[in-house]
């Protein structure tokens, strides 16, 4: 015959083990964007920043790089994303120094260095706009799986627009592509992941 005391000891033990297991699991951080299951080195690129300086992705090691592909006459996803990323940087406090946000222009024809600089720095003074010739851009877009389709708009004063992928690509301090976010991602989630990657992403 088993005593009721014995039963409650066993039950207590079981609860204890479950709690241990749960805390162990909760220490494992889960990225909040669309995580890449086996992260590899982000495709390398060199483009020209809005100050006319070369921007090499490889030179950014040690920092989290948030890459967005857009254009300045984009009304919606581009300003929404850049405005959210500016908020992320504000929320990061001193960690913000280890984050670089770049917007690669998909419209080098209209986005002159000056137009691009005025645009991206309106969101955050540290943001960089990147430019390249169509020949320089094409392999970068392909490597990141970014769609950019120029559409003529004959009835619009814009003349044309560019249908484009609206994800933000998150590259960790070791230079690996870790995840993507859509423009409606919560800024708290982005900030949390960036903070995590700054702490752990070197190795």
């Amino acid at each position, binding site marked *: 015959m088993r005593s009721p005391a014995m039963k409650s000891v066993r039950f207590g033990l079981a609860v204890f083990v479950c709690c241990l297991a749960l805390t162990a699991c909760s220490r494992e951080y889960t990225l909040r964007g669309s995580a890449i299951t086996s992260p590899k080195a982000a495709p390398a690129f060199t483009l020209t920043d809005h100050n006319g300086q070369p921007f090499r992705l490889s030179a950014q090691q040690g920092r989290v790089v948030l890459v967005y592909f857009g254009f300045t006459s984009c009304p919606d996803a581009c300003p929404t994303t850049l405005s959210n990323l500016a908020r992320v940087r504000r929320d990061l406090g001193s960690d913000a120094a280890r984050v670089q946000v770049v917007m690669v222009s998909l419209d080098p024809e209209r986005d002159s260095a000056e137009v691009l600089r*005025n645009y991206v720095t309106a969101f955050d003074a540290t943001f960089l706009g990147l430019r390249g010739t169509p020949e320089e851009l094409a392999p970068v877009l392909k490597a990141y799986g970014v769609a950019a389709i120029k559409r003529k708009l004959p009835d619009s004063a814009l003349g044309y627009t560019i249908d484009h992928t609206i994800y933000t690509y998150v590259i960790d301090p070791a230079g690996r592509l870790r995840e993507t976010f859509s423009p409606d991602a919560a800024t708290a989630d982005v900030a949390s992941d960036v903070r995590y990657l700054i702490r752990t992403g070197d190795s």
Partner: protein
Amino acid sequence: MRRHLAPLILLASIVVLSACSNANAPAIQVTEAWARAPGSAQAGEPAATPTAESMAHGMARPTGAAYMRIRNTTSAPDQLLLAQSDVAQSTEIHTVEVKNGVMAMRPVDRIEIPAKGEVVLKPGGFHVMLIGLTKDLKPGDRFSLTLHFEKTGNIEIQVEVRQP
């Protein structure tokens, strides 16, 4: 018979017209109008003057977008057909669609405001696109925008510029 018809039509028209003008609530109500104009000018810096280089690229002046809530208090649908403002060279009505992570912006001919209903112009959907900003718009600035509706006619609203 015809003689009697003319005054009757006239009377009916007057009744209808006065019914319209006597309505307490305006037919179309626009609230929460705001705009973003990123890159219009940097904070603390004068607006960038277009350079020969930027002019050569066809669109030296930046664009912006205005958003708002439009309510139709009448029992018939109305259509937003046009918008006009001094702050932009052209003003168009656009929508945005996202499919498989790809965003496409397209001009639309009209936005239907359903009877006793409302439409919200907001990021990710309809917007009034301000193409070629002629004024340096900073957060906190206000500008006027005229909306032209098929039935209601013109409505002038004030739009507040917000942080991009």
